[in-house]
């Protein structure tokens, strides 16, 4: 049995093992939050442990090599041989790609490319109106990132927000309409996993920000809500920052 045939025979459990090692490692290092909602953490880890036991049992019980009479008795046929060679090569390719993506490359969050692709604050479900109504008039010292975006996007009004102070952190994302003066502090709202992530953000007015901060870097902004000094921009209300501090990506980069 050639190496390709060996790969073809064992590709399923090897891919399982790649997934299991990646899942358990992400679970142990807090990286699962980069990909799935926290409510799935326990279920995901438990199923990974069960799968790990079954994978190790498969290595112990299933014969390493397939006997010629076991399932495919016509290996002499050329077309069959060609197909097996192709499948073996394909299996190797999938395993190599899986190892690279899940084990070699470091875990990362979604970036400004996805913000652009999905549209900033384009999701109404990420910002429920009923929640916004409750926020108006409440003590804003405990407001979350999502609360502030809800108030801004769901029409709490410039008058209500004027002068209110907020400290928020997120991904630096250029504003489409005024990219020289305004950037968004952005986060993704995740319902199930990164696939359904919807970008939300707060506009920060800082002329020449590009000389200080790179898009996709993480910052913490302490600022006050004011009317946008640039009346030509899309955003009517912006954050005028007191301080902007570069920070490391937080352990939970998404909001739920």
């Amino acid at each position: 049995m050639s190496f390709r045939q060996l790969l073809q025979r064992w590709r399923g459990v090897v891919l399982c093992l790649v997934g299991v090692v990646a899942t358990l490692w992400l679970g142990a290092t807090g990286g699962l939050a980069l990909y799935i909602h926290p409510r799935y953490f326990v279920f995901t880890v438990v199923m990974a442990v069960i799968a790990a036991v079954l994978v190790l049992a498969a290595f112990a019980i299933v014969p390493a090599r397939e006997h010629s009479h076991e399932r495919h008795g016509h290996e002499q046929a050329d077309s069959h041989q060609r197909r097996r060679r192709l499948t073996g090569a394909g299996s190797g390719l999938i395993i190599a790609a899986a190892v690279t993506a899940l084990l070699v490359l470091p875990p990362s969050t979604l970036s400004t490319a996805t913000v652009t692709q999905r549209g900033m604050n384009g999701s109404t479900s990420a910002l429920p109106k009923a929640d916004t109504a409750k926020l108006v008039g409440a003590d804003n010292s405990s407001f979350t990132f999502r609360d502030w975006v809800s108030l801004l996007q769901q029409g709490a009004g410039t008058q209500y927000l004027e002068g209110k102070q907020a400290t928020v952190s997120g991904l630096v994302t250029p504003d489409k309409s005024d990219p020289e003066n305004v950037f968004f502090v952005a986060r993704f709202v995740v319902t199930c996993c990164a696939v359904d992530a919807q970008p939300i953000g707060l506009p920060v007015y800082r002329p020449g920000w590009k000389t200080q901060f790179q898009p996709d870097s993480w910052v913490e902004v302490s600022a006050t809500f004011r009317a946008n000094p640039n009346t030509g921009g899309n955003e009517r209300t912006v954050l005028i920052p007191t301080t902007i501090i570069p920070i490391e990506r937080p352990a939970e980069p998404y909001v739920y």
Partner: protein
Amino acid sequence: MGVAVLGIMVAVRVFAPPASATSGMAAAARDFVSLSISVIIESLPFVFLGIVLSIGVQIWLPEGFLLRRLPRSPALRRPLLSLLGMLLPVCECGNVPLARGLIVKGLTVAESMTFVFAAPILNPVTIITTQQAFGGGNGILASRIAGGFVIANLIGWIYSRHPGQESLLTVQFQEECSLEDHAGGRNRRVQQSVQLFFRETNAMMPALFIGAAVAGLIQVGVPRDVLVAVGSDPVRSVLALMLLAFVVAVCSNVDAFFILSFGATFMPGSIVAFLVFGPMIDVKMLALLRTTFTAKTLLQLTLLAALCAAVLGLGINYVV
């Protein structure tokens, strides 16, 4: 050998380059990897659960336990099977290995189709999340449940009239079915369980990884605003959200929350078409179903499910 392979993989992970190593990658490429990994990490536990349930059904349930309890009449069996998801609330990824197990235990191919298309919609988790997202009063929840039930049973009925049901299955899966021999004591059954896990993962895992990569690629490549631009047209909105369902491949348990963000832009019929078509057919499901059904069958199933979902969506848009 297993411990050695495990050791190598752990070593690869531990000695992998630091986070700065990806700084040279384009943002879109990084997001493609992140989205593909997200699909894998989110789907894997459900696929494992589906395989474990399949092992339970095939090896540990007494012979005929399930089939004896089902009505003999196919017209009654299919509706009952479409409600099986109420007892086994696995999302669509997990239903594929479970359906394979049910075929091995004697379900007809048509009956397995009814189960695999109905179960992701007619299960308690999906119903609760749809109710939470849209409420119960606007007809979206009722249309989803009724639409999913009717379409799954219609597809099952159509294929029940196919004269050669086995020909709808891949040759590999037909071989799997012929291998079924699960008599024996406890130790023998443990061995058979491990061997079945080995065979099922060999079929499922490559499909899942390829499906995840395709889903990630499409997510990065297809701009959402192109789809949203057609949201107010009764016909194009239905087609656009069905295409979105096919592309994004979101789990049926939470797809209602995902599509809620399009609720203000798109017509109700298109939302229902998304909620009915997505759990049945998407890029990831096609890859998983390909382990069991021939390409020709899958093409027919896709067109049939799409046609039914489109009719349902258009009906709601024009009538309601």
